């Protein structure tokens, strides 16, 4: 199931699509999140329904690798919102995973977090 996490903020501008960790962080920062769990078709159908509510889409690039429907939809998404693809921590090389998530949050969502 695609999990839509609702934030406490009323203005919905940023949508985060990724693993549960990125989703939780996104929601904590006031964004909405869709969690990708190998549910390719469902994710794309959810995006098609809701993308018009957002200005920015932050997603893990590995979803494009895995999900042809999402890959094919990315050009349309780029016309509708600002898209920010991120490398998943496991492919970002030798990194400290927690620090990596922190840096993403700081850079794209503008908040500091502690694990």
């Amino acid at each position, binding site marked *: 199931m695609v999990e839509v996490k609702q934030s406490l903020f009323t203005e919905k501008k940023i949508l985060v699509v990724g693993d549960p960790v990125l989703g939780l962080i996104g929601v904590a920062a006031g964004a909405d999140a869709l969690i990708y769990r190998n549910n390719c078709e469902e994710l794309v159908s959810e995006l098609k329904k809701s993308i018009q509510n957002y200005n920015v889409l932050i997603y893990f690039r590995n979803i494009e*690798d895995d999900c042809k429907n999402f*890959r094919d939809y990315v050009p349309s998404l780029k016309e509708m919102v600002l898209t920010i693809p991120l490398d998943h921590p496991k492919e970002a090389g030798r990194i400290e995973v927690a620090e990596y998530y922190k840096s993403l949050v700081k850079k794209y969502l503008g908040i500091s977090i502690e694990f």
Partner: protein
Amino acid sequence: MNRAKAFSQSVEYVTLENALSMLQYSDIVNAFSSMAEKPWAGKVLKRVTTGRYTLIDVQRDIDDFFIEKIVELAEETKNEEARNCLNSMISLSELINIVVVLHNLSVGRKPATIFPTPLARKIPLVSPEEFDIHAFRRNVDKVFTGLVDRFIKNKKLSMREIALALHKPVEKIDKVSNYRVWRLIGIYHDAIAVRLCRMFPDLLKEPLYPLIMEDKIFREACNSDLIELSKTSSGYRRIVLELFDALTDSLTILKGIEAFDLATVLTTMSLSKTLVGGEVEEKVKRLVHLMGSSVILKLIVLSVYTNTYRVELQRLLSKWLK
């Protein structure tokens, strides 16, 4: 890359729009006339408007154009990692061509090539008796000379040499430094390996190392009926299932191993959309587009020339080229 260069390169490719437009025509002259401004249309257009021609002539003209572009791409690429990646993909394609040429010679058939590679344009369409195997050996890349030498000596293909030749092109490809390119080359390597073990079941007795496919599905892909294989829709990595999905669609217009070849090309073209940044990704993406454009254009020509599978091809391209 500046915009002018990006534009000049993009017109080298066959886009979905081009393909669908060409498929609306009932003859090759009109189909290519509608694309007269495209660089890839020029040579074919000259041939088909100035005299008699065969389907093979047109297909060779198409190959010639794209092979020249592939050679240019390889020559202009100075970045070592990008060169390694290009050479890897070109060598894997070249391996299929070499094996098919040698196999055809061993069974008394004319040499033929499958993929657009630099070697492909140096292979004359002559009878097996007229084929100069020593000239052929001089033209092949040095990583394949062992394979050709063994063939010259034993008059048959060595499975051990094929297995070795499959491994060599991917030796220098590093998973960590460019994951997405590694993934694309990995599935291409595995598909080429499957293609070869379907041609020669004895190849499975040799040590083969698929990069992406789990061993179970790799062996199944080598042994199963292609129609059954194409129905595999779960239980394996998505990238592998994508290849089988492409196979399902390819089987609507082609039969047997040709459908598998097309599925391989469609899968790499689709995966190339994930390549967006840096010189390595950019060069590999360009190579995949050049190779794919050649294959797709030849299919369009076949469809228009024979007036067959037009609707099926439109459907397939709409799904895989978008």
